[in-house]
């Protein structure tokens, strides 16, 4: 080994040691988090790792075309990983050298590395240009972090070319004809230089390359580029259920509930914060962020990370945290308003390339605020008390639940007799407008001749909003009561007309041991038409119909086609799509308990969505959720468009078509 080998070996060992130390320091902090079981489904998880990081399905998204640049950079990085490994090893043991390979292999590799390097350089340049001149609104474009990393990659590539160029100039590179870019560097920048100069240049660029490479490695744990290390395990550990469910809580004396301090998150939650690469897609999708609210999901995850890094060492040492997770104004502390802005629409988690769960962390913290500190917007006090004492949001007498039944034929649900339980829900039972949807559904069920029944005044609220608002304690008692009632009554199939009831019964209640078939009315109607039980002969002319996807039906439960097909059949033409549809749909603003909160900051989310709908110049907006119904009608009134545009539920449209026949 030569002297330079020895020097490099020492530098290499220092760099690797430092990296290992940084890496360990960061990862030890993850161990502060609570354990969480995300094992199982190994094959599926491995497949995800292949698909998302390695095949870059994460980055490639038609809505974010620039993602392809990331994919190119990633693949280049994978290829250059081989090249750089050889580079480092060769630095220590000169004997390890691709040049020792047979010509065919060596030439191929040289060509590949040369081409890939220029691709990487171009991708970096593109990225810089985009950040400087064409940055989208959602991207924190000019962050120091980004430019440092991009410069490093560019420096690596340039050093690579200059180093190779210098070697080509010396005539010692036998693959020179297979290295067109390096060759270009040799002829363009180093033409006519003496052999000694070239030797010195080659050495200088070798060392530049070596130092930058090791710096890059050591910079990673301290930057957002940590994602290079964590996103693969993060994808592996992703939530495999369609919905991100909050775990149940055990209500026992001495327990703490929710997250009030960063070490109350799970380790996986904390790893999420390491995996964020600040692409800003979640900010782009977030309806609260789009309407100038305090909330930006990316910043929430960032704050969790900063908080962990700040408090972590103290917490590891068994000391108190100094930076509050909630309520502080500093970076690393989440403002309280932020936590109540979230509609839990799930757009952030759906779009995140590395499956970070943004909104569930907000819900974790809500749980803490509500249950440990009783800190929440004052308008929720009434709501919580009404839910607790009367099992509906408004505190209306439970005896009024079946008032809608006077004008349509209904039956109570009978054990062993009735097939479907029609779980009407609070809106469908009490809200004047939503009762119309209930009636439409009842008429459809009767027309199709299915066996269905209701619980009437015994029906209880499902507790959706409570859970999303963090009041798990009351939700827990309500869920237990409901599940017991369903089991006692031998309920096997439940129809809901509210996506919130739907997802709560179908997904959340599974945690309480409820295993029944839950079906949304739009799914059922679709099935009934398919099976021929429900016949829609007529067509109803509603003008131009735009369709709005309810978050809890679409993103939460992947029901996109059934309502659209039904509307197409009933109106004779497919509904018009809004710009934001399917998994990119934009929330109406009422989910996550926002229905019961005032929107005090920024533009109304519902106004924004109504405006998006109005750009399509519809005569009808079709919804499939009573919350969306309320928010759209409200928004149209604010826009003074209520006389020109009507809002109808899928069931109402079907009902009108049935009347036509």
């Amino acid at each position, binding site marked *: 080994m030569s002297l330079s080998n020895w020097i490099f070996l020492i530098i290499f060992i220092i760099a690797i040691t430092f990296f290992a130390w940084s890496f360990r320091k960061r990862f030890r902090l993850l161990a502060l988090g609570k354990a969480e079981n995300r094992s199982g489904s190994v094959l599926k998880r491995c497949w995800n790792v292949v698909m998302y990081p390695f095949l870059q399905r994460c980055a490639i998204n038609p809505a974010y075309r620039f993602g392809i640049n990331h994919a190119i950079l990633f693949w280049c990085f994978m290829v250059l990983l081989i090249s750089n490994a050889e580079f480092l090893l060769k630095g220590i043991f000169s004997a390890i050298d691709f040049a020792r390979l047979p010509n065919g292999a060596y030439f191929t590799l040289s060509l590949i590395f040369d081409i890939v390097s220029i691709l990487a350089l171009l991708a970096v340049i593109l990225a810089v240009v985009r950040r400087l001149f064409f940055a989208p609104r959602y991207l924190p474009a000019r962050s120091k972090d980004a430019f440092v990393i991009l410069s490093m990659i560019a420096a690596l590539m340039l050093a690579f070319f200059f180093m190779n160029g210098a070697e080509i100039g010396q005539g010692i590179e036998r693959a020179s004809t297979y290295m067109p870019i390096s060759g270009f560097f040799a002829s363009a920048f180093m033409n006519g230089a003496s052999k000694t100069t070239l030797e010195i240049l080659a050495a200088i660029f070798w060392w530049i390359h070596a130092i930058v490479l090791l710096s890059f490695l050591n910079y990673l744990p301290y930057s957002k580029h940590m994602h290079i290390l964590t996103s693969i395990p993060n994808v592996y550990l992703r939530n495999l259920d369609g919905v991100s469910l909050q775990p149940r809580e055990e209500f026992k004396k001495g327990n703490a509930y929710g997250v009030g301090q960063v070490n109350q998150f799970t380790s996986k939650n904390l790893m999420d914060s390491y995996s964020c690469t600040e692409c800003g897609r979640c900010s782009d999708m977030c309806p609260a962020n789009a309407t100038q609210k305090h909330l930006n999901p990316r910043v929430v995850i960032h704050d969790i990370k900063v908080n962990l890094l700040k408090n972590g060492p103290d917490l590891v040492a068994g000391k108190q945290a100094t930076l509050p997770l909630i309520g502080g104004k500093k970076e690393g502390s989440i403002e309280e308003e932020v936590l109540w802005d979230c509609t839990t629409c799930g757009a952030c988690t759906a779009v995140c390339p590395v499956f970070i769960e943004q909104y569930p962390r907000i819900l974790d913290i809500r749980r803490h605020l509500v249950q440990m500190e009783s800190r929440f917007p004052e*308008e929720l006090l*009434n*709501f919580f008390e009404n839910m607790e004492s009367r099992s509906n*949001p*408004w*505190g*209306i007498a439970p005896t009024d639940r079946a008032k809608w039944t006077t004008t349509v034929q209904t039956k109570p649900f009978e054990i062993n007799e009735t097939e479907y339980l029609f779980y009407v829900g609070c809106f469908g039972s*009490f*809200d*004047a*407008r939503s009762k119309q949807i209930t009636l439409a559904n009842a008429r459809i069920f009767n027309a199709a001749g299915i066996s269905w029944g209701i619980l009437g005044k015994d029906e209880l609220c499902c507790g959706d909003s409570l859970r999303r608002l963090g009041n798990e304690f009351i939700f827990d008692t309500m869920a237990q009561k409901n599940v017991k009632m369903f089991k006692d009554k031998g309920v096997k199939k439940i129809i809901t007309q509210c996506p919130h009831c739907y997802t709560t019964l179908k997904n959340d209640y599974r945690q309480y041991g409820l295993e029944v078939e839950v079906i949304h009315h739009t799914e059922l109607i679709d099935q009934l038409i398919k099976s021929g039980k429900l016949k829609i002969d007529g067509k109803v002319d509603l003008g131009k119909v735009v369709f709005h996807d309810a978050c809890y039906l679409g993103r939460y439960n992947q029901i996109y086609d059934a309502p659209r097909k039904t509307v197409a059949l009933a109106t004779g033409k497919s509904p018009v799509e809004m710009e934001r549809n399917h998994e990119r749909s934009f929330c109406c603003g009422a989910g996550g308990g926002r229905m*019961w*909160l*005032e*929107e*005090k900051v920024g533009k*109304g989310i519902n106004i924004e969505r109504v405006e998006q709908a109005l750009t399509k110049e519809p005569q009808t907006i079709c919804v499939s959720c009573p919350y969306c119904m*309320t928010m759209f009608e*409200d928004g149209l*009134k*604010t826009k003074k468009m209520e006389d020109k545009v009507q809002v109808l539920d899928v069931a109402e449209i079907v009902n009108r078509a049935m009347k036509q026949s």
Partner: protein
Amino acid sequence: MDEQKKIKKPRGLARLIPGKCIACGDRCQASCPKDAIAMNDKGEPIVSAEKCIACRKCMKICPATAIEIYFTPEEQKILAELAKEAKTPVEAEESDKDTDTIAAKLREYKGVWVFVEQMDGKAAEVSWELLGVGANLAKARNVELCTMVIGEKVENLCQESFAYGASKAYLIDNPIFNHYRTEPYYKAICYLVNKYKPEIVLIGATGLGRDLAGAVATELRTGLTADCTNLSIDEKGLLLQTRPAFGGNIMATIMTERTRPQMASVRPHVMTMPKKDTSHKGEIIRETTAIKEDDILVKVLELIDNRKQGAEEIDIAGAEVIVAGGRGVKSKENFRILQELADELGGVVGVSRGPVESGWMPVERQVGQTGKTVRPKIYIACGISGAIQHLVGMQDSDVIIAVNQDGNAPIFEAATYGIIGDLFEVLPAMTKHIRELRAKKRNGA
């Protein structure tokens, strides 16, 4: 009794008539001499068949007539047989010796008295309204109608009470009574009552009147019925006091049988104002009191007139009249129309969510699920469709009036009175008509 008759007359058992119990507060249980009644979690009685002796005390005490005496079919047969023999003795009313001695004591109390509430020498109108109903009671009982006038320099009120029908006024005029304080006032009244022994005392159910009446009744250990809507005399000469209970869901007729005076308070505007007749004269009986200022530790430091308060201080949650507007009001400026009506009725302007969203009105004025819950005496909803989010905030108002162009709007389901029409036409007409009526009255009086 005939020895051959082995059959004993069945007594039956007390039992609850389903759906009738109002959970009045365990009266039946308390009345049961045999401890045979237990209360369930709903506050309804469960009668123990072993312990019940069918004494009927619970049945009599039950205000809701929710308890009956039940006989099994066999027992009914026996009863029928006994009835055939026509020998069943009529159950005599239990004669109650206590009742007689009490009755004698009660007879010492005579006359109907009305407390004249005043501030700075000006009487509260409710006092004169009480003289109206008091006159009827006095007539039915054939006794005098008198007033109590307490204050500083308030002799003029004695004359005024004669003009409204009183024939006697008991006057205590002393600087100590300058402004109302519970202690000196209740002591003064107890002094007068103990000395002159009226059988009925009526007090206006204002903030002041309720504060006073409770103290007086407690000190005298007598019955007090608050917020009566109807007062009359029964065949035995007792005062029948009818008032809403259970949040206005039921009416209850209440008596004070064993103590005197029988005290009742009545809310303003419930009784009709009697005609004023300045020629009607009466007798003033001056009284003094031994209460000294030094003994009274409560001091009134300041009085703040609400009308002089700033607009920011407007508190819709405590308002008695609210004129509320929705999106139908259409602009910020148009709220002037609502304000005019509110001013005329001594109320404030509230809103539903729409106007707040549109920035026409501040969020502090919002009524509803996410705003304030209000329970005014009058709630006038203008251009409010009545979405559930709004209804839950105002449905407990005493009187709800809806003005809306859409006759199908859910607000009409909650309304006491409704006008289907354009609020921009209806509201100004309402304001105008009130002003006309008031002008007419002023000119007439």
